[in-house]
């Protein structure tokens, strides 16, 4: 991959003990608890978890888009920058040239009354200090690069004239326009239908490799994470519960929660009268119990799980798991009988 980054041993992005509390009315609610992970230059890291697990908040902390009144602790390092301490011009520069973000809902994230062309060229003109003609030419090239063939016509259109898939491609084009070193992709394909999803994902992946950008990829789709990511971080109730190579996540999960997620996917070869699901409902960080946050939903939970908070521990050279039984259960999590989940989950109360 192209070496646009400085050659240092330190990772491009390092999130260390990141905790976030949001103000809800009078009280402060914890949404992230000491989350740590890192992304090397050019690497793709997947952030996986159910709704409310803190995926989006992690990305918002990295892009500094947390809602007003949010309190953070810990550190987010980006190539020597202390992201959480950035102010004013330094923050603007970091956003303009170092990171870019692709949102789930492209339509809501574009100004409806501005043309696609304005959307793409405005940053280039304002941040890149290039002329309108040159910017329009670059925009056309970018649109062609993301597979939009009638780019000249699209540039004159408004967001509502484009389909969701097309608009997401425009988003990708605008994200890579400034050649950022890190792309934050917050469920970029969730709002699209399946065939469009694959196309958009392929374009995103290709652009990433072409430009040598690192990517933090948020998804709740384990299969997709396995396909596009190098590393995966599984979040549950605002905590990292597992971290390991994406390709192993499927057949060798290290945490019962991940195993449950793997098993909750319907199997295309098997007819299920009742779709498997993880029993109970997703827990957010502020309502998590004292012990292991997943214990109330875990079929393998024991007394000690409910009493003491498990630490994130390394499992061999494989990865890390926040489960006290991780070592003893290793390799058996997906077998029937010991699985944290069976197909006839009767108390799947959602």
């Amino acid at each position, binding site marked *: 991959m192209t070496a646009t980054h400085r050659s240092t041993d330190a990772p491009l992005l390092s999130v260390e003990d990141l905790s976030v509390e949001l103000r809800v009315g009078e009280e402060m609610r914890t949404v992230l608890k000491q989350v740590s992970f890192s992304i090397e230059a050019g690497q793709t890291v997947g952030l996986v978890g159910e709704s409310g697990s803190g995926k989006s908040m992690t990305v918002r902390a990295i892009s500094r888009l947390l809602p007003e009144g949010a309190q953070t602790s810990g550190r987010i390092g980006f190539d020597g920058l202390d992201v959480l301490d950035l102010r004013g011009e330094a923050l*603007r520069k970091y956003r303009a040239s170092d990171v870019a973000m692709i949102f789930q809902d492209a339509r809501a994230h574009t100004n409806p009354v501005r043309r696609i062309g304005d959307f793409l060229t405005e940053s280039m003109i304002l941040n890149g200090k290039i002329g309108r003609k040159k910017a329009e030419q670059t925009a056309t090239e970018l649109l062609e690069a993301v597979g939009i063939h009638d780019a000249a016509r699209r540039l*004159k259109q408004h967001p509502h004239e484009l389909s969701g898939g097309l608009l997401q491609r425009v988003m990708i084009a605008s994200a890579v326009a400034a050649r950022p070193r890190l792309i934050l992709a917050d469920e970029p394909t969730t709002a699209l239908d399946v065939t469009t999803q694959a196309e958009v994902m392929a374009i995103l992946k290709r652009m990433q490799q072409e430009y040598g950008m690192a990517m933090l990829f948020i998804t709740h789709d384990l299969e997709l994470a396995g396909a596009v990511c190098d590393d995966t971080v599984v979040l549950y109730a605002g905590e990292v519960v597992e971290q390991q190579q994406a390709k192993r996540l499927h057949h060798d999960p290290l945490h019962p929660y991940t195993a449950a997620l793997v098993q909750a996917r319907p199997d295309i070869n098997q007819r299920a009268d009742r779709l498997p699901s993880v029993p109970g409902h997703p827990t957010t960080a502020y309502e998590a119990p004292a012990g292991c946050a997943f214990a109330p939903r875990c079929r393998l939970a024991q007394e000690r799980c409910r009493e003491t908070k498990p630490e994130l521990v390394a499992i061999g050279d494989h990865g890390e798991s926040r489960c006290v039984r991780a070592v003893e259960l290793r390799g058996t999590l997906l077998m029937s009988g010991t699985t944290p989940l069976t197909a006839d989950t009767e108390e799947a109360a959602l």
Partner: protein
Amino acid sequence: MTTTSIVTQAPSKKMRPRLSFISGIGLTGQISFWVIIAVALIAAVGPYIVPADPNAVDLEYAYYPPSQWFWLGTDASGRDIFSRLIVGSRTALLGPLAVVAMATVLGTVLGLVAVWFGGWVDALIVRVIDAIFAFPGILVAILATALFGAGLPAATIALSIAYTPYIARIVRSAALRERNLPYISALQVQGRHGFAISARHILPNVSGLIVANATLCFGLALIDLAALSFIGFGVQPPTADWGAMVGGGMSGILQGEPLEAIAASVLIVITVAAVNTLGARLVQRSESRA
């Protein structure tokens, strides 16, 4: 396909702003719009087409009845009322226009600044707005003329400040709604300046509401300025002005010559009614579109 869309787009681009401005405001709105255009036209060309010198005093012709020379008769000093009404339309329109222009610029900037910076900046601006709201505009204007001397400039500046909170409050609430939309955070994360986002994205998206409320303020300012001229603090004689003519025509009413006061009042009422109706329709339209 590509060529046709380009060809059809070019002319419609020019037509759109004009057509869209008076569409969707109903028949009354449209009538009001054309009445205002007519008054503005008279104000623009009036001084060049008046039948008589509006300031020519001739006491022999005082209170001369309507005739082929003086269409609406003359006032106490023998000046042609019709000519004075036409010339007076300039001050009647330019005064409020200046008030609204200043109040809109100031109010828009304050509203956008309050929304973008939030926190204590927002709190401070809201407090200042509330404080200015507590003073009736006309009282501030009278105070200003007492300090800086009677006349249009002092009254205009004072009224501008008095009307700023109306615009600022509306811009603030509309911009606040816009600020919280996701596309703004998308722009932020692209590293845009807050100034650029406010000016290039938030402002255009709240401009409809600003125009509508500025129109409403225009009507109010016209009345305020006419009232100031009426009591002698605004436009100074011998300059022709509708408000001053109502004031000057008062003595005529007592002498059984009410034409000057009535004619000037009618023009004020028609103009203000048209402006207010148009403003109300515009507000309605921008709220239904928002």
